[in-house]
């Protein structure tokens, strides 16, 4: 995809700082996520990656700075409003309804798009019924897309980790977001599962022109699928650019190697 198509910033993080007591989690961070790109946010443990995501979807409120999403300032909006604006996410530690089936987890995510009132639903006729069909169709498309037919009716709590991660991605998609936030979608997976997940992310990106912000630990995979990379270290943004530039950036090498050594 050429650069002209996604020059416009869909999400703009402007001078965001966040601290917990004396600890600075984010320090004057600024970067843009351009419409239609896959941007990876990487950094060593404790660099502030998840804190950043938490600011984006309203779990945390930044102390200073602004986050603009398509012209809306997110910093003061309640979480459900942010979801309605079109930002959905997956979590590093999977957060699903473990007692429900895959299908029900995905349908639950359709909640924000449901319009039928209580009376409609009680009668289950006309609007509620029509709506149900539409939601089911959308959810079934996602099940097909993510190859989850065989676990459609399986209880999520009983699924292996790799599949639960996939269900979570499915739920994020069921919100029909414009920006997808993925918090370490590949942790705890074996190589085959990682490759599957990478393929799904690329497919979503290609097919739906989805803008993706990806937080990930696995450097190899990040470099393979991201178009641009932003690097955080101790709450500071230390580099931003194409994967190749990042790979050879001395500050990044130092941050990562410093951690390993």
């Amino acid at each position: 995809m050429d650069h002209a198509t996604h020059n416009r910033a869909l999400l703009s993080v402007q001078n965001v700082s966040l601290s917990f007591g004396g600890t600075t989690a984010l320090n004057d961070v600024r970067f843009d996520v351009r419409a239609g790109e896959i941007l990876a946010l990487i950094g060593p443990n404790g660099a502030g990656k998840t804190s950043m995501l938490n600011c984006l979807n309203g779990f945390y409120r930044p102390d200073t700075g602004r986050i603009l999403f398509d012209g809306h300032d997110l910093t003061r909006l309640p979480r459900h409003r942010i979801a309605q604006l079109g930002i959905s996410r997956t979590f590093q530690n999977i957060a699903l309804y473990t007692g429900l089936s895959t299908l029900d987890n995905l349908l639950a995510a359709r909640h924000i798009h449901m319009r039928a009132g209580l009376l409609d639903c009680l009668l289950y006729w006309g609007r509620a019924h029509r709506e149900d069909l539409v939601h089911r169709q959308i959810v079934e498309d996602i099940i097909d897309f993510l190859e989850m037919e065989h676990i459609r009716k399986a209880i999520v709590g009983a699924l292996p980790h790799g599949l639960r991660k996939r269900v979570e991605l499915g739920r994020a998609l069921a919100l029909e977001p414009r920006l997808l936030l993925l918090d370490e979608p590949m942790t705890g997976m074996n190589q085959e599962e990682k490759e599957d997940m990478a393929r799904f992310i690329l497919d979503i990106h290609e097919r739906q022109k989805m803008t993706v912000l990806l937080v990930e630990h696995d450097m190899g995979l990040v470099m393979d699928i991201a178009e641009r990379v932003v690097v955080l270290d101790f709450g500071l943004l230390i580099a931003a650019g194409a994967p190749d530039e990042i790979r050879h950036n001395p500050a990044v090498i130092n941050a990562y190697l410093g951690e390993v050594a």
Partner: protein
Amino acid sequence: MDAADTLPKSLIAARRQFGDHRIAMRQKDKGIWRAYTWQQSCDQVRRLALGLIRLGLQRGDKACIIGDNDPQYFWAQIAIQAAGGVAVGIFTDSTPPEIQYIVQHANAVLVFAKDQEQCDKFLSIRDQVPDVRRVIYWDDKGLWNYTDAWLMSFQAVQADGQALDAEQPDLFDRSASEGRGDDLAIFCYTSGTTGLPKGVMISHANLLAGCDQTAQIDPRRETDEYLSFLPPAWITENVLGLAYHLRTGMIVNFPEAPETVQEDIRELAPHALLFSARLWENLVALVQVRMAESSRLNRLLYRLFMPVGYRVSALRFEQRRPVGLLWRLLQALGEFALFRPLRDKLGLTQVRSAYSSGAALNPDVIRFFRAIDVNIKQLYGSTEAQVHTLHIGDDVKFETVGVPPPGMQIQIVEDGEIWVSGATLFQGYYKDAEATAKALVTDAQGRRWFRTGDAGTLDADGHLIYLDRVKEMIALAGGEKYSPQYIEGRLKFSPYIRDVMTVGGTDMAFVTALINIDFNNVGRWAEKRGLAYTTFVDLSQKAEVYALIHHEVEQVNRTLPPAARVRRFVLLHKEFDADEGELTRTRKLRRGLLGERYRDMIAAMYGGGDAVRVRAAVKYRDGREGVVETMVRVATVG
């Protein structure tokens, strides 16, 4: 048009008979079964066949198909044949070098490859298969951004076909009517337990004869349900699935995904089912393991009524004696409390014809299913001659594989080899006159026989008892012969044993076994006992696991004559793996290779040592290779 002596003509005849008022096929898509009528199915084939003609497919040309069981697979096959071509099926899990061999050997000019995964394989061998003009895919997922003009969508081919149809409306019928019964219809590349795969040439007449012979004794109706899940590259699916479908109007259903087959079977409750012997065995193991974990009430019902089922079916089938009133009453209760729910769980509520093939089926498995009122029949055949024998009606004997269907003849020649003859005999191996001459012989009366390479005997009722491959029957040092298959089948009935290879021979005094534990079931067993383990290697070498398997081996030994008993065994540190060439794609053991590979272990079993050090090269799923070094114990049985 003349009599329907080819598959495409059969489709056209069925379309004329059933038109838009009968369902031909269904596929589960997005959770809903979507139906195609015979008219729609035929229209699909028509557009596709004309599209292939436009792509330059000539009469006699070969075209390969690789993909899962989908309507598109069947349509592609009939369309290739309607255009006068030969369809060559390839197993979906074939590697690019395997695919390359078949495409080159068959001189294929067109290829159907279902999806991104299969198209990628072709892109990786593109330079080696210059004769392939187009790769046609029918699932575009992930292929949206592929711009290579070598790839073409199913719909695009059909659109070209439609345009051609508008120009020449009689072309399809003309092309289909040019086909003759003795034209080649398909090549089936044999899984090849030895050497390179061979292309078995099969004519339309062969396929239709195979269907008609079996249909005489096991008829189907146009309302019968069938689920297509056997590999479509395999002869069996071509006869019992496609040919039966076109010939009898039976409805063919396609699973949503390969992983959902079990669920789809349950939803559909097909009238006819063919599982490999292994699959039936796995089902029994599954029931047993699930039962062990089930509620107390369920376990109680199972313990209470299974003996009733066993007793009643033994009276009925084995002793052929009338069943007393009390037992009939208990049986009726069991039907309500256990048998019917169990059949429902397994998708067997409507099944009329339940077949097993691929290997000798363990009597215990047959007894189990009879107890829940499913009469499994054995079916024995080959790619080269289709169905050789099968059980007909209630005439089912455990130890046999049945009798030849009408039209087939069998004979046992002096060295014990089974020869078969009939209208289903194949036309030869493609480009291999030498192998063809070896396999096909004509007797003094001018009758053609296929030498199966299998060993067997006929019993007093004319039932065939299948022993093993002729070259696999093994004589021990004492002169007694034993059938490795039999012992292995018995051992594999244990839920804790996944695979076994027995070892013996004229230079060996007794039988030994290489055993693969079933990682899931043994793992669960270990967890229940608080037995900690890390990997397959670790679990397989636990003393407790050895004791568990030791007990299983003793159980089986009790049913064998002393000379044929397993005296020593090892639990392998890894599973047999098709990717490493240890098993064929249909999961048959490659004994020669295994014997070579595990030579040290076999030597240790006969040498009397208690353990052997192994260094085994392993290939990980991500393609890396490594070496595992461990001690493997050798156990001695009483």
